């Protein structure tokens, strides 16, 4: 069986799944950047308590699961979202949905994902894909980051749906509860609410680990890494930051380019609010993150090693924090037209 579904390759898994699942309802209007922005996807968080590959977790996006839920909520689309204790029930439920003709979003772990190259398999459980059909024992898989659709047999799919560790998916699946026609007016309201939520997340989240203050504090920490961790480990930490920032799923520049693309598209729906101009500031921020990544590579490859090089590295983040702060403050001052 096969449901009615079009695979469109995306940069980021969750905004891609969201866009693909809403494709029919929106007539293709909910593009990936719109889903990312409406879902208030842009973020920064430095979480030393969560260790990934023995280094601190550094996130450039909001928590997995938030984008789909927020986007649907902002568009007044009811969502069905389920987790399972039983693997059998999880498979049964999925099969029933497919039989009734509805493609289903699934949260999975990437470690045992068969079509991923080995180099990219870590115990990261926040990946998302769409199951849109089943032929014999093979499920038809639309993984947004892949150019082409893939298949997994029932054991392979069960394994990634029940991957273990942090953010274990527990068979988590989700889909829009009913067909809703998405109007331009709904999109306009959703854009405004997404921007508002993102302003809060970046400017006003309490504490010094997240948002703009998180970027600033990470910059200050980096300057101390050379003495505190030694060159080798400091290099590994920076390599980890670069991976979180640029690896598959980010669209480049720590998701800043996707957000810039979102503001450009949003400008068409809400002209007269300078969104296209503000978009340019996010492009600049993305470029700065990439320049910082090039400098970081100089350090983790051993070409740069002085304290001065770490100071420059930290300053990159301080400058980025200033640019993103001004961008979000400009967004905050908008009197919507």
């Amino acid at each position, binding site marked *: 069986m096969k449901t009615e579904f079009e695979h469109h*390759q*995306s*940069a980021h898994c969750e905004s891609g799944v969201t866009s693909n699942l809403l494709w029919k309802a929106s007539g293709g209007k909910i593009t990936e*950047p719109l889903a990312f922005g409406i879902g208030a996807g842009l973020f920064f968080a430095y979480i030393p308590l969560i260790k990934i*590959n*023995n280094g601190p977790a550094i996130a450039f996006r909001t928590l997995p699961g938030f984008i789909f839920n927020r986007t649907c909520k902002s568009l007044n689309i009811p969502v069905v979202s389920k987790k399972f204790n039983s693997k059998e029930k999880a498979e049964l439920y999925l099969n029933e949905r497919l039989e009734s003709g509805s493609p289903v979003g699934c949260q999975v772990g990437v*470690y*045992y994902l*068969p*079509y*991923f*190259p*080995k*180099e*990219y*398999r*870590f*115990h990261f459980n926040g990946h998302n894909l769409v199951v849109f059909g089943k032929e014999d024992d093979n499920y038809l898989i639309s993984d947004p*980051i*892949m*150019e*082409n659709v893939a298949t997994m047999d029932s054991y392979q799919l069960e394994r990634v749906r029940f991957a*273990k*560790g942090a953010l*274990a998916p527990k068979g988590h699946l989700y889909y829009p509860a009913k067909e809703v026609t998405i109007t331009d007016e709904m999109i306009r309201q959703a854009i405004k609410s997404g921007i508002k939520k993102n302003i809060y997340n970046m400017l006003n989240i309490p504490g010094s680990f997240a948002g703009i203050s998180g970027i600033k504090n990470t910059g200050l920490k980096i300057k101390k890494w050379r003495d505190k961790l030694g060159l080798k480990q400091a*290099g*590994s930490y920076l*390599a*980890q930051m*670069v*991976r979180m920032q*640029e*690896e*598959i799923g980010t*669209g*480049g*520049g720590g998701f800043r*380019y*996707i957000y*810039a*693309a979102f503001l*450009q*598209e949003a400008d068409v729906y809400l002209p007269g609010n300078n969104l296209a101009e503000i*978009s*340019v500031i996010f*492009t600049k921020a*993305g*470029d700065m993150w*990439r320049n910082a*990544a*090039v400098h*970081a*590579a100089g350090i*983790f*490859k051993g070409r740069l090693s002085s304290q001065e090089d770490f100071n420059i590295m930290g300053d990159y983040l301080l400058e980025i924090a200033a640019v993103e702060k001004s961008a979000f403050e400009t967004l905050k001052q908008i009197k919507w037209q």
Partner: protein
Amino acid sequence: MKKDEVPQDLSALGKITNEVCYATDSSGKYVKALSRGWDVKINALDIAWGDIEKRVAAAKEQVLNNNASPLLYFMEYRLMDISILADYTGFWKWQIKGHLKPEVFNKLSDRKLEKYAEAFNITVEDLKSMTVHEDGV
């Protein structure tokens, strides 16, 4: 980032799929652009795998010197820590700590070894003999 500046350095992923980047065209409009990879990311990933390989090699030595059971080797090989392994097998963390000792591991029942083998996606035989088949993920 401008569209014609999107890097095209072939990565391990690039051999399987191009990835989508967002970049601006000559008029400044954002478009989807495909990338085969970027040296900076490739190097960052190499660093991560270099760290992993060192840990795997150190674990192997521990096992060969009879300071640890093959569990330690496969934990490092599969990038797992005790808490992920506990989640996959259903054992308590303190039990796994015990099983990491060679003398305890050598007395484990087949049923328990089977649980570990399944978590690592290998056979019990390979688990005991610390054998790796490269394509065995």
